[in-house]
Every structure is written in structure tokens, then in C-alpha cells.
């Protein structure tokens, strides 16, 4: 599916993501890395009581889930979306994304936005690494295999 280049709204949306990261740091003192927040939420299933960490992670995830209803309420519709319907691809990619982000301690938000913003060399290295493997993956799947 071809998509339109949207520099202005993408910049505005990106700035909102940045604002969210700053609010999260100012209020709770943590980086707004989604894979980390979700991973913390998962480890807590093993604990006996709801720690503050768990509640914060859960609240952030609920906030994410409320974004689409809030957007729809204001805008009246949601942007177009195109997701692969290949179940094997969905499962395989999901496992890779979950496994890789947990092992590498971060994803596009934790390393790409928060990490780079605080000048972390680990996050800069991680972001370059996943960008390169993602570019190669899309090149191979679209131009070598899919051609």
C-alpha cells in the first residue's frame, strides 16, 4: 500500500510523543519506553501484590488504549491502516519484536526517542542496529523475494 508523505502532521504527532515522554519523566521519573513498560507489566504477574510500578505501567497502557476512542470522538474517524493478514508473518514478527525488544532493553520509543534524547550511546547504537536490520528486511522482502 502506497502512503502519502505527511511531514507536517508527522512532526506534530512526533512532538506529542515527545511531550508525553517529558510528562512521564517529570511526573514519575521514568523513560517512556513502551517495550519496557509492557515488560514490567508482564513480570508483575508473578508478584503477589500490585506494586506502584505495576500500576504505573498498567495506567500508561490503558492511556494508549484510550487514544483511539479519544481521537475518534474528536476527529470523527481514524486514519487508514493496512496490516498484513498472513498469520504466520504476524506470529513470527510478533515473536521477533517482543523477543528482540526485551533482549535489547528497548524499542523505537525507549531507545529511538527517549534514549537518543538523553544522549545515551547504548540507545544510539541500538537504534542504528534495528534501523539497519529493518531496512535490510524490507529490502529483501519487497525487492528480492517479493519482486
Amino acid at each position, binding site marked *: 500500500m*502506497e502512503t502519502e508523505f505527511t511531514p507536517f502532521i508527522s512532526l506534530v504527532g512526533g512532538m506529542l510523543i515527545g511531550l508525553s515522554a517529558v510528562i512521564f519523566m517529570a511526573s514519575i*521519573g521514568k523513560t517512556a519506553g513502551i517495550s519496557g513498560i509492557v515488560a514490567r507489566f508482564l513480570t508483575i504477574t508473578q508478584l503477589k501484590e500490585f506494586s506502584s510500578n505495576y500500576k504505573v505501567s498498567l495506567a*500508561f497502557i490503558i492511556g494508549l488504549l484510550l487514544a483511539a476512542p479519544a481521537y475518534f470522538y474528536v476527529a470523527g474517524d481514524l486514519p487508514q491502516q493496512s496490516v498484513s493478514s498472513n498469520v504466520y508473518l504476524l506470529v513470527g*514478527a*510478533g515473536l521477533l519484536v517482543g523477543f528482540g525488544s526485551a533482549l535489547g*532493553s528497548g524499542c523505537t520509543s525507549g531507545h529511538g526517542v*527517549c534514549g537518543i534524547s538523553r544522549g545515551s550511546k547504548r540507545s544510539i547504537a541500538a537504534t542504528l542496529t534495528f534501523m539497519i536490520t529493518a531496512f535490510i528486511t524490507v529490502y529483501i522482502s519487497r525487492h528480492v523475494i517479493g519482486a
Partner: protein
Amino acid sequence: MNILFALISGLIFGLGLIISGMANPAKVQNFLDLFGMWDPSLAFVMGGAILITAPGYWLVRKRSKPFFASAFQIPTRKDFDKKLIIGSSIFGIGWGLIGFCPGPALTAIPFALFGDYAFQETLIFVVAMLVGMLMVQKLLKLI
């Protein structure tokens, strides 16, 4: 209070993802398709986010502690280990294959309430992603 601010942070983050177009995996994959129908939008999303986060973090960190917690919890490691590089490589492959990363996938789950969206596909991806995360936690004996 920290629960409320975590909720607000998540909401604004999700709105940012939807507005920027990143809840659409096709837009992400087209950013990664340098030699095809390249759509540079994602670079503007990351640029916009860093434009706010970098000075914002700098200002916030001038305080001795956050408003509703006892201390900042910033990652302190500085070394490049195998886990970081191998994990990030694997993450990039999965991200390239489908165009979803954790934030946009979670944000996209409720889309189907408001129209003809890929609910089952998104949910399958998210469940597999959670399983992948649990596998690492088992492997590293975190749980």
C-alpha cells in the same frame, strides 16, 4: 497522582502515534523501503519527538526528583553488550517484516471499535509479542 499522570502520558503518546500516521504499519514499512515507495514521514516523527524530549529532559533533570516519585529511574549502563546488539537486530527484523512495533500495535487494538480495521491481525501480533517478551524473561530468569 502518578497513576493519573501515567494515564495522561499514555493517552498523549497514543494520540501522537495516531496523528503522526505510525499506527499504520504500511507507513512504517514504506519508510524502511528506501528503494521502493519511500515515505520519509517516520523521520519527522522521531525528529519531532526528540525536538521536544531532549530539551524537556534537560529541564526536568534540573530538579532533584520527579513531581510524584522519590527519584529519577534512568538507565545507567554505558557498555555495549551482546544482548543489546543481538536484541536490537532481532527487533529490527520483526519490525521490518510487519511494520508494527509495541506502541503502535497496542494503540491500534481498539481501532476496530470504530470501523473496518484489522482487529484479529493486530491482536495476533500483540499476543505473539507478549510471548516473545515472556520468553526473554524466562531465559534471563527474571521471573
